[in-house]
């Protein structure tokens, strides 16, 4: 008896030591993880705080409602943000139907053979192609061959091509996440293929698809290189024709052909000026682009959360 007691206690000590060791390992790992996370977050935060501090004097309503000017103090972003908004609209209207339809087709309809494999590989590779390549393609195809000019339409279509792979890949991934049993259940009660796709597949993958779209749009918003390549303007002190009119037919598509500038180009232009006062404007523009991008990504996360919560299977 007396000899057994210390043995158990000794054993217990060993176990405790082991637990302590493992807990320490856990702790060390969590610290490493935290550091890894912080490297990314702090870099972004430092950049952002730096931009905000540099650009702070220009955060006012005038900055958003003034045309560009040679005087840094009264130069504003009006043409740039309106341009960005219109280009994004074209991008959205083009990339979303094409991307979602392509994703659904590849996942639900396409036969599995070498040809679809080839398409798959290409789509994944396209997502990694440098954006300037899209700019060059657009310059040749849209500007010169199709003669669309250096217009909002050209820029919107170019950025749509750029984010198309992102939309396709996320669409496919969110469709793939739907359990096979859902499809089988629908077929079992006699649904047609289209009914399955429109009532179930699209419905359940909506959150994921939406996330992909918003992340793609946020990327398109910050793109500079392809838009410069197709020849966006740097000084433009008038707005494109308004898309909505008071009289019938109410909608006006002249703005599609208008020249334009976008936020990153305005920032780039200000940054390369000799006058340091313009660098303040550039910093403020940078901060605004980051804020809008964060808002878009935040919306994506929030929407995904909301929509996932309502799905019960």
């Amino acid at each position: 008896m007396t000899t057994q007691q210390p043995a158990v206690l000794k054993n217990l000590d060993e176990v405790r030591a082991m637990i302590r060791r493992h807990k320490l390992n856990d702790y060390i790992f969590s610290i490493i993880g935290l550091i890894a996370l912080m490297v990314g977050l702090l870099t972004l935060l430092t950049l952002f705080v730096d931009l905000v501090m540099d650009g702070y004097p220009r955060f006012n309503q005038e900055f958003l409602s003034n045309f560009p000017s040679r005087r840094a103090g009264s130069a504003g972003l009006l043409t740039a943000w309106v341009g960005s908004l219109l280009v994004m609209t074209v991008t959205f209207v083009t990339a979303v139907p094409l991307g979602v339809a392509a994703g659904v087709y590849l996942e639900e309809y396409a036969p599995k053979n070498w040809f679809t494999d080839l398409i798959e590989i290409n789509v994944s590779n396209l997502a990694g192609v440098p954006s300037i390549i899209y700019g060059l393609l657009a310059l040749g195809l849209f500007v010169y061959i199709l003669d669309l000019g250096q217009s909002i339409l050209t820029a919107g279509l170019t950025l749509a091509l750029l984010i198309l792979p992102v939309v396709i890949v996320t669409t496919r991934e969110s469709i793939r996440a739907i359990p096979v049993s859902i499809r089988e259940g629908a077929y079992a009660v006699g649904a047609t293929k289209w009914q399955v796709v429109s009532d179930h597949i699209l419905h359940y993958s909506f959150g994921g698809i939406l996330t992909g779209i918003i992340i793609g749009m946020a990327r398109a918003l910050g793109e500079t290189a392809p838009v410069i390549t197709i020849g966006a303007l740097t000084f433009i002190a008038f707005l494109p024709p308004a898309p909505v009119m008071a009289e019938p037919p109410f909608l006006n598509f002249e703005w599609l052909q208008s020249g334009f500038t976008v936020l990153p180009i305005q920032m780039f232009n200000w940054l390369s000026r000799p006058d340091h006062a313009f660098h303040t404007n550039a910093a403020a523009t940078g901060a605004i682009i980051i804020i809008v991008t964060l808002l878009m990504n935040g919306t994506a996360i929030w929407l995904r959360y909301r929509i996932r919560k309502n799905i019960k299977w």
Partner: protein
Amino acid sequence: MQFKFAKTLGVAAAVAGLYAAPATVLAAEKIVKIDGSSTVYPITEAVAEEFQISKKGAVKVTVGISGTGGGFKKFCRGETDISGASRPILQKEMDACKEAGIQYIELPVAYDALTVVLNPKNDWAKNITVAELKKMWEPAAQGKVKTWKQVNAAWPDKPLKLFGAGADSGTFDYFTEAIVGKAKSSRGDFTASEDDNVLVQGVSQDVNAIGYFGYAYYEENQDKLKAAAIVEKAGKPAVMPSPQTVMNGTYQPLSRPIFIYVNATAAAFKPEVKEFVNFYLKNAPELVKEVKYIPLPANEYAAVNAHWKALKPGTGFGGVPEVGVKIEELLKRIK
């Protein structure tokens, strides 16, 4: 939800269909399209801003920055009405314009002083001769001339770090013509950037650096850089770049006129282009100074104005960015 989504797709398809019908009513709109050199851009931007204010939005002006060469490419395709240029039009560009049937009116609008800049801690090089600059920048120097001592025996044996304009810029063309003697002929092993602020950063952070760019960038960064005085030939005095030395013609060979080229057809048949150029020349003396460039002397502006009024097409350079030509003489050459 699922129906809404399908409906969105339908609406999107309908909107996409509407793209196909291009709006053709744009012809009535008055637009002056300008592109070209980033050096001329600040002046053109200032003029465009004031012009649009004075016209109360009746005429629209757009200004792009494609660089002198890129600007001429668009200009000779007839895509723009006016092209800014920090060097005269080259033979290749003259041919392209001729082929497309485009004639142009060459108008000098201001002077710029290409400034050779040094780090403020550089205590050995104050005056630099053109011969020394040539030794640093000529193609034969590539990989061979690596220290300051190799350029001038009185200078220390320290590495020579070169910063210059990118090969697409008019600044590069002019500097090589003025220093090496042949446009675009330069060594390739230097830090090149189209963005002059990058060059400012580079030179201000390296004691052994030397670089060149337009005067406006030096003027804004005098706290970080110092300019070198240029000796044109042995026996001539060393001259610092400044508005005075450029206007009295002593800052040679690096002071250069900068131009706008106006499409002659547009000048004759588009009243808004004519009006814009009139406005440009009338307000240039004041606006050029405001954006930190060097205005032409009054008699030269008068000559340019007369040249513009006569609508004489052509270039006074014959395709070579000649150095040190007087503007009045230049304009007389265009018959």
